[in-house]
């Protein structure tokens, strides 16, 4: 059980000259929800984006150290980004569905990875993914409708479905509820608890209650450093570091 799915070893990340992550060592475990919290600009999203190498898109980024996913160094030049991103899916802050039908949104990933060609298999996968995120019953009769006509919560669920239809191992979520109302937020959290049976989940959030409610382990970051990383209950009831305590008690951030 102690085997980490994601492990970083002395991870440094620079944007140009700016040191955005400093000496980050973290071990994220299988089938758990790990929350990363911290004040704005602390590097939590940056760390999350390291795990599927989305930081590569920023031209002046430089990364040092190691990131192992299931033992494989994903920073190596030989790493195939396409299969990495298939294995490590990502859900963004805004529900960014494609301007396509619900069905085509889900089919997009299958198509680019040439995963299935038979219509029956694709239909099955679509149904599976939608059932998984609790959308099938509401949407089964209108799969051809444009995904942008859905409510924000439904769109965010669809984004999660679009990731899990590719059968990833890890799902990264970058403040997935920040544009949702409280009720929708709770529903998404409920969904995450169900999903953790099949996936390893890492969620970045600026909402401490959310971290407390949904996660098994919590990492607190500040100014690019990982300050404390422990079981969620422990972090919130008995933090070891002064900074952590100040943050969770609302004294800054």
């Amino acid at each position: 059980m102690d085997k980490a799915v994601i492990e970083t070893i002395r991870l440094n990340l620079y944007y140009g000259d700016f040191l955005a992550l400093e000496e980050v060592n973290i071990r994220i475990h299988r089938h758990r929800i790990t929350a990363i919290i911290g004040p704005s600009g602390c590097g939590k999203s940056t760390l999350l984006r390291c795990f599927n190498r989305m930081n590569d898109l920023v031209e002046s980024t430089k990364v040092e150290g190691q990131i192992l996913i299931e033992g494989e160094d994903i920073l190596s030049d030989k790493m195939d980004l396409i299969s990495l991103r298939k294995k490590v899916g990502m859900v963004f802050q805004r529900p960014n569905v494609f301007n396509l039908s619900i069905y085509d949104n889900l089919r997009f990933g299958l198509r680019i990875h040439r995963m299935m060609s038979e219509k029956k298999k694709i239909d099955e996968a679509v149904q599976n993914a939608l059932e998984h995120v609790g959308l099938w019953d509401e949407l089964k009769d209108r799969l051809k409708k444009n995904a942008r006509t859905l409510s924000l919560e439904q769109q965010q669920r669809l984004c999660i479905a679009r990731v899990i239809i590719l059968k990833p191992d890890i799902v990264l979520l970058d403040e997935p509820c920040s544009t949702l109302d409280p009720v929708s937020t709770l529903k998404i959290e409920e969904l995450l608890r169900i999903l953790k049976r099949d996936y390893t989940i890492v969620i970045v959030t600026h909402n401490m209650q959310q971290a407390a409610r949904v996660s098994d382990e919590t990492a607190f970051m500040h100014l690019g450093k990982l300050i404390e990383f422990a079981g969620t209950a422990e972090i919130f009831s008995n933090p070891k570091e002064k900074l952590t305590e100040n943050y969770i008690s609302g004294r800054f951030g």
Partner: protein
Amino acid sequence: MSAAQKRQTAAFFILGFATMLVVIPIILTMAYVVFKGIGAVNWSFLTEAPRNGMKEGGIFPAIVGTIILIIGTMIFSLPLGVLAAIYLVEYAKDNFFTRLIKLSVVNLSGVPSIVYGLFGFGLFVLFLRLGTSILAGSLTLAIMSLPVIITATKEALESVPASFREISLSLGATKWQTIRNCVLPYSIPGILTGTVLSLSRAAGETAPILFTVAAFYLPRLPHSVFDQAMALSYHLYAIATQVPNIPPKISFATAFVLIALVFLMNLGSIILRARFRKKKLW
């Protein structure tokens, strides 16, 4: 009235005056051409070849020539321009060399058209031995149109939000799949606008076709892309300055047809763009 209000009134007056100064001459020119020319435009003028040393008859071969040249220009410049812009925006690293290329592209659109004409004459007509032909003329006009198409496409691609690319890449799409599915469809309105603008300019230009394709008097349709052709702009230049005793209404009617053609192209692009814009969602 307070001093600030007075200044405001004065500013509005100056701004309005500047706008009028731009708009009024254009409207007057168009109105003058339409007014003087429309009387001579009729079915036979549009569908017959010129006769009697261009003093009589119609301008059909020139209309066809101009349309062929527009199509030929588009065939060469649109794919090349869009591909080059995709490379510059999506693939090229941001370094000195890339910036130099981008700057050159912008500057090329300011090069006088006669320079393109002479360049096309030297390269296509003489060196590549295409002769004075539709092919040479289209290529010359295409080179002239490229900077505008590249710049417009570049701006259209850059205006697609980064998040569109992010989602696609995060799902494991390759760069090309991302461009093809998540960037290009949303840049079509911008590309279209730039293309039509530069093609309408190409339709009206005389200098680039002067030595590369234009025939002074060729009262028949071209046989192949290696044939010469008449073109509206050059025909207008010829009858207005080179042939004595042409009834002025023929010149004006020719000008009217040229303006109408360009206007129709722009109208078409506005309609197409409005359709595509409904898809634009940011």
